[in-house]
């Protein structure tokens, strides 16, 4: 029985991990784009981006998930944006998660970028560096160091948020564990999923700590 449960939970874990990885791969760069949008000197763009961030951060991720998955088909009868089956559901979940997390990340990026003293940029300017050089060679690493702790928080939250994907019938880890309550009247498989979450977030925490340590050579 344990073997069967473990295999089933592992299947759910793989689904959760897929969503986790897609979200990070998409949201980390998209968040930077959103951050630059929200700092834009062009007011319409800045306003639109900040409005989007307000809506996304102000409504539940589960709601967004449902809207992203069912919305396109309901708005346009017979139109299937996401495709069928597991792949379609995973694509929709990834899209909703990426959008949601990009907005959260963008605020962290913005805070990090705005916290770098103006003198750093000016020092680069008077040395004849271009804007791109100043961003990539002077500011980026300082921003990275500053945003690492809040980013770590969000990333660990993401591990646990993946369980929301069950609302559109993705067979993720929590779902896999809960299934045994219905089918066998067993609670321990569900508790066992907690161990999976704990181990994985523990691994992430220690990686993040290592990274913070690596960056502690400067202030």
């Amino acid at each position, binding site marked *: 029985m344990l073997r069967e449960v473990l295999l089933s939970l592992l299947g759910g874990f793989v689904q959760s991990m897929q969503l986790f990885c897609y979200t990070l791969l998409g949201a980390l760069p998209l968040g930077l784009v959103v951050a630059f949008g929200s700092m834009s000197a062009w007011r319409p763009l800045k306003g639109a981006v900040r409005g989007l961030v307000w809506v996304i951060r102000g409504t539940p991720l589960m709601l967004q998930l449902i809207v992203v998955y069912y919305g396109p088909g309901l708005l346009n009868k017979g139109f299937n944006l996401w495709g069928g089956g597991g792949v379609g559901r995973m694509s929709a979940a990834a899209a909703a998660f990426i959008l949601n997390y990009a907005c959260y990340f963008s605020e962290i990026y913005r805070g990090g970028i705005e916290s770098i003293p103006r003198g750093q940029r000016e020092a680069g300017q008077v*040395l004849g560096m271009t804007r791109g050089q100043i961003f990539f060679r002077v500011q980026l690493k300082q921003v990275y160091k500053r945003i690492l702790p809040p980013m770590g928080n969000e990333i660990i939250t993401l591990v646990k948020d993946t369980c929301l994907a069950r609302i559109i019938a993705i067979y993720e880890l929590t779902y896999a564990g809960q299934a045994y309550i219905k089918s066998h009247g067993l609670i321990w498989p569900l508790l066992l999923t907690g161990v999976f979450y704990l181990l994985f977030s523990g691994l992430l925490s220690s990686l993040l700590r290592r990274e913070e340590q690596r960056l502690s050579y400067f202030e």
Partner: protein
Amino acid sequence: MAYLEIFGLGKRFSGVEVLKDVNITLEKGQILSLIGPSGEGKTTFLRCLNFLETPDCGILRLDGETLFDASRPGDRRADRHRRAFGLVFQAFHLFPQYTVLENVTLAPTLARMGRPRELREKAMELLKKVDMQEKANSYPHTLSGGQQQRAAIARALAMDPAVLCFDEPTSALDPLLTEEVLNVIRRLKEEGRTMIVVTHEMGFAREASDKVAFLSGGTVAEMGSPADIFLRPQTEALKRFLRQ
């Protein structure tokens, strides 16, 4: 014709005139000290020279070449001549994630001013000049303020600016560290570097500079040799300032 010529420089911030009709000339290899009360435009003037601010009016000429003319539309957002000037900040602004040596080599490397090896050797020479060669591999946060400022001077020198500007380079330092930074500036003068120094160190302005300008109310109220300014002040404002 002087080496550096500034005519009618003006700058306003949201309607407030911070600089008006600033006229300054400076010969090659000379030090100009800018003195005057705080908030009367000294720092803004240096920031205009370095194109951290764009002057609203005025002409800037270096060695006979017009670098900036506010009436030429293309110059309004120009910073292509930024490299004619260098600036050393009051608060140093070293790049914290780089060693002292990397701070000095970064800009010349990005500007492709030479092979990495040559640039490193040149940087080591500059660090030697400011007496920082032993700290080449240290990170800025491990250094004293005086050491950081000397590293910042080496970093500015690495771009070999025609005119090196200092914005109150010792205001963040205690007297002992102030002296080591001022000594570096004196040494650069001996090498013939043209410099503009905004300073509150009246002793330094009197003894080290070739020319002193007194900025008051956003304009040059008085300019002359150190003896003119300190021994024979003409305006009431300067007399009052020197009494303090």
